């Protein structure tokens, strides 16, 4: 008995080293801080934008229409980033738009990670014919150009935020399925899965209670890295007029609306674009950083 207790004490020693390494990995480099800052601003605007924004997103005023940003000649201190053709405040619309972007991104991820992870688990765990069918389905899906599919779906469902979620949801899952399947296959080889079978667990229970928690890191990293892509994709769809409809303050839609006035009102396109860029860059940096922290295999570089 005392032997086993001694063992447990000596086992805590490498943990301290590991913890130091963890701390080092957490604080390494400045880029993650930039990423966290961008994501922080983004999330702050999502949460409190309603109170922070100086105007409503659809509050128009034709007298103050097409004002340049405040620091330019003719700009007004009432509209920091200028106004659009209907006199709506660009800054306020960008702030309100953050909520749209995140809501849509979260919706998309919820849809496609559910589909992707479930199919990946089934394919990786059951193997054999199930695996083959799911993987061929993946190949088929990945071969389909997302934008063409999007136009098809929009023509059926009509353009709206829900449509975007459906489009991204049904096109994005194969990436998740492939990664989850691979991880699931290697986890399934572990003795503790065998032990769960010995205990008499059903397949579904093994998949979702014993394998899925082991995938948490992978899924968190994938989701963070994906948010950026989805924000771009939804902006693209809105820009093409396939997504949210006016007067929604969607960033992609704002760029589309400003496109025709770009010659004399560049701020209508540039500022929403900068917002998209910052959000995407932020999530990508945070995603990379999380991968470094959560995935010990990557850390040895």
């Amino acid at each position, binding site marked *: *008995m005392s*032997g*086993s*207790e001694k*063992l*447990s004490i000596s*086992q805590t020693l490498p943990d301290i080293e590991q913890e130091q390494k963890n701390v080092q990995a957490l604080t390494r480099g400045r880029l993650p801080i930039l990423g966290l800052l961008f994501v922080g601003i983004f999330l702050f605007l999502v949460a409190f934008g309603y109170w922070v924004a100086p105007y409503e997103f659809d509050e128009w005023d034709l007298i103050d229409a097409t004002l340049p940003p405040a620091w330019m000649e003719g700009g007004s201190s009432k509209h920091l980033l200028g106004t659009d053709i209907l006199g709506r405040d660009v800054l306020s619309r960008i702030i309100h738009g953050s909520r749209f972007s995140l809501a849509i991104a979260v919706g998309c991820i919820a849809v496609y990670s559910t589909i992707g992870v479930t199919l990946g688990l089934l394919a990786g765990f059951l*193997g*054999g014919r199930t695996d083959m069918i799911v993987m061929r389905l993946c190949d088929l899906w990945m071969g389909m150009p997302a934008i063409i599919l999007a136009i098809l779906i929009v023509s059926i469902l009509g353009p709206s935020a829900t449509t975007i979620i459906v489009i991204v949801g049904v096109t994005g899952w194969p990436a998740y399925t492939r990664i989850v399947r691979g991880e699931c296959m290697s986890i399934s080889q*572990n*003795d*503790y899965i*065998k*032990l*769960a*079978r*010995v*205990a*008499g*667990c*059903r397949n579904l*229970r093994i998949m979702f*209670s*014993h394998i899925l*928690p*082991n995938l*948490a890191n992978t899924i968190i990293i994938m989701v963070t890295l994906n948010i950026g892509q989805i924000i771009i994709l939804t902006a693209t769809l809105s820009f093409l007029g396939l997504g949210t409809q006016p007067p929604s303050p969607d960033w992609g839609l704002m760029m589309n609306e400003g496109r025709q006035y770009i010659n004399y009102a560049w701020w209508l396109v540039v500022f929403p674009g900068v917002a998209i860029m910052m959000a995407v860059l932020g999530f990508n940096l945070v995603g990379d950083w999380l991968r470094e922290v959560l995935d010990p295999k990557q850390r040895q570089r």
Partner: protein
Amino acid sequence: MNAVNDTIIKINDLKTYFFTKRGVVKAVDGISFSIKKGEIVGLVGESGSGKSITSLSIMGLVPQPAGKTIAGEILFNNEDLLQKSKEEMRQIRGDRISMILQDPMVALNQILSVEYQIGEMFRHHKKADGRSLREKCIDVLRKVKVPSPEMRIKDYPFQFSGGMCQRTIIGMGIANKPELLIADEPTTALDVTIQAQILQLMKQVQEETEAAILMITHDLATVAQICTRVLVMYAGRIIEKAPVKAFYKNPSHPYSVGLINSVPVLGRKADRLYAIEGQPPNLMDPPPGCRFAARCDKVKDVCLKSYPPEITLEENHTVSCWHYATDTE
């Protein structure tokens, strides 16, 4: 020898093959044995001789889809397990037949708590819930002598030492008082002092629960310590069955002799440890005769031609070797 009512499990001519792209691997190729209530039977043999596949066949957990049990019977209390449906097997597993796995550090899921994992043994069989489930889990740890089980129950496996993990796994194995417990090299991954403790614990547990134990090992010392009978497996077949004492006093199959000779003995000086020359045969294409013939120093013509019959030397002691066939003729 087989009074039907106290035979827990009887295996007749079991064949488990693996169908791979390169050919059929005959991992277990026609083995028969039985275990009586309260017995501890050792199944020994080198790596790749089919010990683990035998145990997985009994559990119905042969790796799919390559592996398949293609022939034979596994009579568990006179019911053929091979005829059972998946759902029936699932209910038997963990409840009436249980298993202890080899490496304690990888046999527990590092990110689920010990309580949750022990609980799995109950959740699927005895409908225990909430507080009674926790009580039962603590009982399991207490039974296998993990210190202060009430505190440790919430821990995660990485907070346990190797010995404690193995105790936990043994506890899980016996949680539902199974009639048959298969222990797949339960002490191989542990250091010697812990090994002794674990073996002692297993023996004690066996006396309490009256489970029959099939102890799979390649460690002859383990066999000598706790088993009552020994089965020696070589290249997918059982080549010798003997009571432990008879086995050590009078090992009969040349392979068994080699096994016992290759154990280092304390105090005996030898320049080199004895080793059996050669490699076991390829199980995709095993020789028609005795599978040990190529490495055997008593090899005869007949050994290469046909497989030897099972020859009874004395009560409960049988061997599959032509060497003894000629003796009796």
